[in-house]
């Protein structure tokens, strides 16, 4: 008997039992189910939620791979800088090396495994308790989480945060499709607020920087935003920032690859181009406003805001998590605005507020995740007013008739 037949028999055997959702989750991972339509349309389009989620994961893979290499590259580059060695940078010679990848394998892969393992376990438990099928939402969340945390996040912290994020961020609302806050960002926010001394330090961004503090081998683990916030000069070129050869959260440094992912999402019609474009516009506008303030000499270089305000507006789009947030976080359809008009407003405000938080909060300059969480909360309100426009138009039509 074939695998297909065996699995089918097993499915029939366990139908209606408690463990059925857990079994079905694995079964449907291998095979598209044999379900046929009943009532309603007799045919259905090819897409299902698994396919949709799979596209998002595929668009994240380049960022993950880059992040693995970058983990090693930043580690060795920081050591070299600490020792005062300068070597010429080549992509093949000093970036895509086995040594770099090895750091990625021992540091980044465990993050991915813990994120998926813990998160899916929670999902399975809830599916079995509540007797519904395992929903696919976590497939994307589980991939996003390791990409937005600092490289030296301890695994136990990540595990605690994932449990919190999935249970409080999603399951208490009723699971995938019902949540108000983006689960991946809930996890990130939990890490930030629960372990602030660890998470907001300037050491966690480069592997091993924390352990070496106070030793003779101490290295810098600071991001560009950190340097700007302290009004320091930044040692990276524009190309470095765009291509992503900079320290930062695992997967969010390479604007180039993020834009590649964005192009794929928009082409496949999975990601909302409206949100992506309007987030960048919003960020650019806020950046420009700050640039004008500096140009008008309202804020001078004695101010603690000067460093980030003086950052050219287009540079704001490349550094920190803005691009990653705009492309992969803000576009989560469940927590974003659901109307097309609403998506423009929602995205614009995310970009706008991100840069505002980034500039005014030098203690922790990364405002993107807070801005997105804030707008998650307001997305239903935005939608409400957009939909009210439609309702008003309908009422007006009636009034014209009766008048």
């Amino acid at each position, binding site marked *: 008997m074939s695998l297909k037949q065996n699995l089918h028999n097993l499915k029939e055997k366990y139908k209606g039992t408690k463990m059925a959702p857990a079994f079905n989750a694995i079964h449907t991972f291998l095979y598209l189910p044999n379900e046929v339509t009943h009532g309603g349309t007799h045919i259905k389009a090819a897409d299902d939620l698994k*396919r949709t989620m799979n596209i998002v994961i595929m668009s994240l893979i380049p960022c993950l791979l880059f992040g693995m290499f970058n983990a090693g590259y930043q580690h060795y580059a920081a050591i070299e800088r600490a020792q005062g060695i300068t070597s010429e940078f080549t992509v093949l010679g000093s970036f895509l090396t086995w040594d770099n990848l090895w750091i990625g394998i021992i540091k980044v892969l465990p993050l991915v495994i813990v994120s998926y393992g813990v998160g899916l376990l929670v999902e399975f438990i809830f599916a079995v308790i509540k007797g519904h099928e395992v929903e696919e939402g976590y497939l994307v969340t589980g991939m996003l989480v390791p990409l937005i945390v600092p490289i030296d996040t301890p695994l136990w912290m990540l595990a605690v945060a994932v449990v919190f994020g999935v249970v409080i961020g999603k399951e208490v609302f009723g699971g995938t499709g019902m949540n108000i806050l983006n689960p991946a960002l809930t996890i990130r926010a939990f890490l930030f607020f629960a372990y602030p001394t660890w998470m907001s330090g300037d050491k966690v961004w480069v592997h091993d920087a924390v352990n070496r503090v106070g030793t003779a081998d101490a290295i810098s683990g600071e991001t560009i935003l950190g340097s700007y916030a302290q009004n320091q000069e930044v040692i990276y070129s524009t190309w470095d920032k765009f291509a992503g050869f900079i320290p930062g959260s695992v997967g969010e440094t390479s604007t180039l690859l993020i834009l590649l992912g964005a192009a794929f999402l928009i082409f496949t019609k999975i990601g909302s181009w409206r949100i992506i474009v309007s987030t960048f516009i919003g960020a650019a506008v806020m950046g420009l406003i700050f640039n004008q303030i500096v140009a008008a000499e309202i804020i001078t270089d004695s101010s603690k805001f000067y460093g980030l305000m003086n950052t050219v507006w287009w540079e704001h789009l490349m550094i920190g998590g803005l691009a990653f947030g705009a492309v992969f976080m803000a576009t989560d359809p469940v927590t974003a605005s*659901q109307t097309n008009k609403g998506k423009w407003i929602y995205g614009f405000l995310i970009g706008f507020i991100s840069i505002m938080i980034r500039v005014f909060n030098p203690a922790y300059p990364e405002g993107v995740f807070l801005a997105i969480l804030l707008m998650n909360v307001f997305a239903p309100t935005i939608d409400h007013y957009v939909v009210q426009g439609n*309702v008003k138009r309908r009422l007006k039509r009636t009034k014209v008739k009766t008048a």
Partner: protein
Amino acid sequence: MSKDIRIKKGLDIKLVGVAEKNTTKVSQSSVYAVKPEDFHGIIPKLTAKEGTEVKAGESLFYSKSDERILFPSPVSGKVVEVVRGARRKVLAVKIAADATQVYKEFGAKDAGNMSADEVKDYLFASGCWPFVKQRPYDIVANPNQAPKAIFVSAYASAPLAADLDYTLAGKEAELQAAITAVSKLTAGKVHVSVGANSVSPLSKLTGVELHKVSGPHPSGNVGTQIAKIDPINKGEVVWVITPQDLVIIGELFLTGKLNLARTVALTGSKFSKPQYVTAIAGASIEDLVANNIENDNTRIISGNVLTGKEVKLDEFLGYYDNQVTAIPEGDDYEFFGWNKPIFNKISTSRALTFSWLNPKKKYDLNTNTNGEHRAFVVTGSYEQVFPLDIYPMQLLKAFMYKDLDEMEALGGYEVAPEDFALTEFICVSKQPHQKIIREGLDLMREELG
């Protein structure tokens, strides 16, 4: 002002098995059936008991809410069985047909000289009233309300739909007689829509407002046309009649006989010769498809693939249907079907689905759901196939949590289940949109009247 309707949002689902323009007459079935469930919202009161002899056009049952609304027997013969379901609900009235058909005589009339009430009474008596349906709620029209307009869509854009230009050819006299009659029933206009490039027998009618329709499905849905021409507001009613039913009404006025024969399209990949046949409403499916079907794991549908009803061989053609579709069942597993590139199915996304490469290609779709039922997740996709000025997802959600105020405000009066057939087809979460809308409309009718 242009009276043409051009829509951009929508989706033409191109399937294998378009009916060839070639009509054969199928042999008369031995048993016909009228199913009260074809008339949504009607509670039947039987007048014909088992064993009663009826003529074609004689009533079998009437509506509990309005006893003037009669439901006629399509053939002459003997009532052989009243099929009942749970709580003695009438499921079907079966009539064994006589070898030679006897028609009940209603007397030919000239609609031009009749008043509105006379036309109404004539339609009641002859059992033609059920052909008049109303929006809102998509049910048989309530004769006590005055419609602001009457709509007829003579453009069929649904997948594999019968070509109305072909099936109605030569029926100009009947159509004109029917239009003259029904136009008495409204103070407003009778709107008739035909395809932009068609030579429809309806395009030469007088006493109507003619609209030319172009664009993808659902441009032919009468709901789309109402929304573009004269949308329904709260408290308003419009009536809707299909052109194939107009022919029956017209023939009644011209001859005095109710002849429920119509041209039915046999479509879909499981027919060996997709073509047209002449059949009477309520005919047995087995006789309709005889010698023409590969009945091996086949789904037979009375109606089209989006809105039709699944039927078995021993069941009957729906009262309003002019199409029977047969497509393969999809009750098989597909290895890694959720992530491998898909070339043989239709999709509106490009998520490794490649139907966008070749928009002209005809597909042989089966009944697999292509995924499991999920909560609403994806946003913005329904709007691309939904031409009405309504937020489809918000309306669906309002219908699901049954907030009557919101249902009303978001456009509940303007929709019928068939308007949500395309959004249901493309739904990534595989939600039953048409069922949600139907149940919501029933609730609205109950609570808001």
